[in-house]
């Protein structure tokens, strides 16, 4: 758009050409959106969460729409690490965009192994460690809500990889700042937040939960105020680069996160509604910067006046 505006941001050693990334689990393995988006314009692509072994996920129905958002209980279905590296990663290497691999393990050992095996794999730009999935008991929910375990997992992964290490936090906690501090102490390079909030919805006609799994993760505009508040709390608690996630549907939403202090943002549920959402958000941020006569997005980041 405007050649004079700098959109490049840094997350540790990782240089992103734009602060607009995709959120894990909402952009498939990237290719699904190639028809809709110029994948080269994205700051980064975060792929669907990967575990050591392939996983089948939960029985359907897995999704239901609720006011202001949706619940999902995918149950972390994924192709597993081997198939990811052999089948999903190669087509993505065609793009000039960093690929961030979202990983989760059932125990500490799996996290270490995932990190070890992904270290040095060509085409992997960074790891995003999901210690926060609320759907599957083994999905790490016990790591993400306890600051000691969060720190433990972070330091294990830290030792296992030289890749930039992003840890993704769950909002289903009393004190997100203490978890963020623990993760920082564990050696994370950056923190992304938030994952989904656990929710439920009832079919009053059949008097049963809409989701076969009973509960699921709430995403979409409904969680945006909570995500912003947590970003604000974490920003005051740690000095790591933060990646804002939660209900970002348009450029205005994205700007709220950048202003509050996120150095980058991830677009999730919005991709389902508008597969071009990431492009339109990128355009919108550039337009806002131009209109506000800001030549570098970094001057906007964290500029909230209180």
């Amino acid at each position, binding site marked *: 758009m405007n050649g004079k505006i700098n959109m490049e941001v840094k997350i540790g050693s990782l240089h992103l050409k734009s602060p607009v990334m995709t959120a894990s*689990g*909402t*952009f*498939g393995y990237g290719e*699904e*959106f190639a*028809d*809709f988006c110029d994948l080269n314009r994205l700051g980064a692509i975060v792929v*669907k969460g990967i575990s050591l072994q392939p996983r*089948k*996920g*939960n*029985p*359907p*129905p*897995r*999704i*239901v*729409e609720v*006011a*202001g*958002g*949706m619940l*999902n209980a*995918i149950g972390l*279905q994924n192709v597993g690490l081997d198939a990811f590296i052999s089948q999903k990663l190669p087509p993505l290497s065609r793009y000039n965009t960093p690929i961030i691999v979202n990983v989760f393990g059932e125990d500490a050992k799996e996290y270490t192994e995932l990190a070890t095996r992904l270290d040095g794999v060509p085409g992997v730009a960074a790891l995003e460690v999901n210690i926060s999935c609320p759907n599957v008991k083994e999905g790490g929910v016990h790591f993400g809500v306890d600051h000691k375990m969060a720190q433990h997992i972070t330091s294990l992964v830290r030792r296992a990889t030289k890749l930039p290490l992003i840890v993704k936090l769950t909002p289903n906690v009393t004190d997100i700042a203490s978890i963020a501090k623990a993760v920082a102490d564990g050696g994370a390079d950056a923190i992304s937040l938030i994952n989904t909030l656990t929710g439920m919805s009832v079919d009053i006609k059949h008097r049963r939960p809409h989701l076969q799994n009973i509960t699921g993760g709430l995403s*979409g*505009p*409904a969680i945006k105020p909570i995500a912003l508040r947590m970003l604000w709390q974490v920003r005051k608690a740690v000095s790591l680069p933060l990646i804002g996630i939660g209900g970002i*549907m348009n450029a205005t939403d994205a700007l709220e996160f950048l202003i509050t202090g996120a150095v980058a943002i991830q677009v999730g*549920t919005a*991709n*389902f*509604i*508008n*597969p*071009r959402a990431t492009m339109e958000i990128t355009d919108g941020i550039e337009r806002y910067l131009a209109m506000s006569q800001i030549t570098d997005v970094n001057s906007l980041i964290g500029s909230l006046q209180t």
Partner: protein
Amino acid sequence: MEECLGSVVAIDEPKKDHFLLTLRVPESFSAPLPGQFVMLRQTPSSTAEVNGFSLPRPFSVYDFTAGSLMILFRRVGKVTSWMAHLSPGEALFIRGPLGNHFPPPTGKKNIMVFAGGIGVAPMHFFTKYFRKENIRVFVGAKTDGELLLHDTFCEICNEVKIATDDGSYGRCGLVTDFLPTSMEPKTVIYACGPKSMLQSLSMMIPAEVDCHVSLEERMACGIGACLGCAVEIWTVAGEKTIRSVCKDGPVFPLKNVVWENK
């Protein structure tokens, strides 16, 4: 494939709560094949700012002629209620055509189509597309008030049979009652309808008879990205595997579908 803007040409209500929507689509919209579907969503129009969050919704192609896409839908909830009030000229986003399609009945002598409820929509496109008089069509509905398209089928096909649950039209009973007990070779069956209907068919149709069914599941993206629309499928090796209805389907060989026992 991209999302395009369609505009409402006409909307009719042939039966109460059942609507036939004709949309003008741009040239870039690829011609769909029978069984394929589209995802529809509101445009960020003037009133969009007051509109709440809404995922796109999947609808089978009911008919397609160059530049014109038809959808047959039943009013059941939030978005279909909104759609029922569309008026000519209004715009909406169309993502598609999506998914796979019914394999053509090439070389088959005995072609049977089973359509239950709103499942007539894709079966209409199928029969019209292949336009063979020897297609035998079986249509089922809860009641006469929900019975759709039997006239249209009669125009295309020689044999059309109707069943309603309450006997208010045609035979009283289930559409699956029409399934012959023995089937000639070179039979192929195509079906779309409620889960219970497809599950009955799966118990009644011998494994050696070809049967292709179109499945439904809740969808968020329609393009294989969210993994919301999971269905369990038997692999050749006899193992259960997960497939996406939107990308790997919506049409699957009936014998490959895993039915839960609850």
